[in-house]
């Protein structure tokens, strides 16, 4: 492979899409685990799942792949955006409004907000876990484990945090709405028959994932 492959605009977009789709699969798994808090208010199922994710060796390796995926997606996104700004040093007096999707105009901004949320989110859970500052939860089968569910429930008792969390997730939904179909287009997967379905499924995916994440703090806060 020549050097062009490493640096061309299309190459960057292909990597951006692959990592973006990979991060979407992570969102689905994460949502599945979070929803356990709604189905089991005793937090046992959620804590078992969190314990498994925190101790399973394969997941531990995968965690670094995921971290790498986030970093590459973010770095590529910033590089692409800087190049895009440089491509039009002088803007228009009246800017155009012909884009298909309004969210596509703001991907860098929604992306930066998601990144800030990710840092806060890791601070709330991951860092506390690393520091061993999470209260213990006793499970008859598996013995003692960390009560990650309690951390979640305590955070969602705060009205301010719930509002912050919901707003951030809506922004993530806007990002996803454009991202899904855009990833397929960048990978060259366009078809007269299937592309309308991919676009429709992208909207559906963004709504379902966002609603799924939002419903958890709302239910915990109001019950």
């Amino acid at each position, binding site marked *: 492979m020549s050097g062009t492959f490493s640096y061309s605009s299309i190459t960057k977009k292909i990597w951006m899409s692959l990592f973006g789709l990979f991060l979407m699969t992570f969102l689905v798994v994460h949502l599945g685990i979070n929803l356990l808090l709604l189905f089991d208010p005793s937090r046992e199922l959620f804590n078992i799942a969190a314990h498994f994710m925190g101790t399973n060796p394969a997941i531990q390796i995968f965690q670094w792949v995921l971290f790498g995926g986030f970093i590459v997606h973010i770095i590529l996104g910033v590089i692409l955006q800087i190049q895009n700004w*440089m491509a039009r040093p002088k803007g228009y*007096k009246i800017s155009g409004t012909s884009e298909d*999707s309004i969210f596509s105009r703001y991907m860098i901004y929604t992306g930066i907000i998601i990144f800030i949320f990710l840092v806060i989110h890791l601070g709330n859970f991951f860092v506390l876990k690393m520091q061993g500052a999470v209260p213990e939860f006793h499970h008859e089968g598996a013995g003692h484990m960390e009560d990650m569910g309690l951390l979640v429930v305590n955070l969602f008792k705060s009205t301010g945090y719930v509002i912050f969390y919901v707003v951030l997730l809506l922004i993530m939904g806007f990002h996803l709405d454009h991202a899904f179909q855009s990833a397929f287009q960048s990978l060259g997967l366009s078809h007269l028959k299937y592309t309308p379905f991919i676009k429709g499924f992208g909207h559906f995916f963004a709504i379902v994932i966002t609603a799924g994440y939002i419903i958890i703090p709302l239910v915990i806060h109001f019950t």
Partner: protein
Amino acid sequence: MDLKLKIWRQQGPGTKGKFVEYPVKNISADASFLEMMDILNEELVAKGEEPVAFDHDCREGICGMCSLYINGNPHGPDSAITTCQLHMRKFKDGETVVIEPWRAKPFPVIKDLMVDRSAFDDIIQAGGYVSINTGGVPDANDIPIKKENADLAMDAASCIGCGACVAACKNASAMLFVSAKVSQFALLPQGKIEAKRRVESMVAVMDDIGFGNCTNTYACEAVCPKEISVTNIARMNREFFVAKVS
């Protein structure tokens, strides 16, 4: 109808430009936009002022020479037409019309509303052709081509290279133009032989010149006077990927 025009005036490349207001009166609703510009220029010349420089040639919507970014739209508010096919009946009496040149780093302003679009020529020179020795005219249907592919290639080939896609794109990306030129050859057997080299070279030149990256907003497709589809961009992405990994 009477209009208030706000036009970008710039003496030459690299000089500082500014918007200048020009009122125009008694313009026929049946006049074309460029005829309205001609009327303005005649008035300016009569007053001893410098006329507004703008690109135009065939005035039949096929040469791709006219440009103009009118009230936030390349080629004006109508769809699937070039500026020369735009008529004044699309505007309201008393309306303010803001006219700007295409804005992109690879399209520097030459004067007023004229921009240098030779960056597109550089991309074509990198591979937008088929290298064949000319001979006698081949018989029709000598090489069988699927009707579907012939139609898609013809659609892609209808790109007139006006640059509206670059002008509309928030990233000043030339992906729609380049993908149309790549597609018109990639879809046909005559173009397949050089397909890999073509897509690699044309994308490399496109990037080197400084066009932005495609973020799939599809503004290009929305403003294209020839309605070139963004499926061409997906095809070019595929062609590029295959060229690089095979």
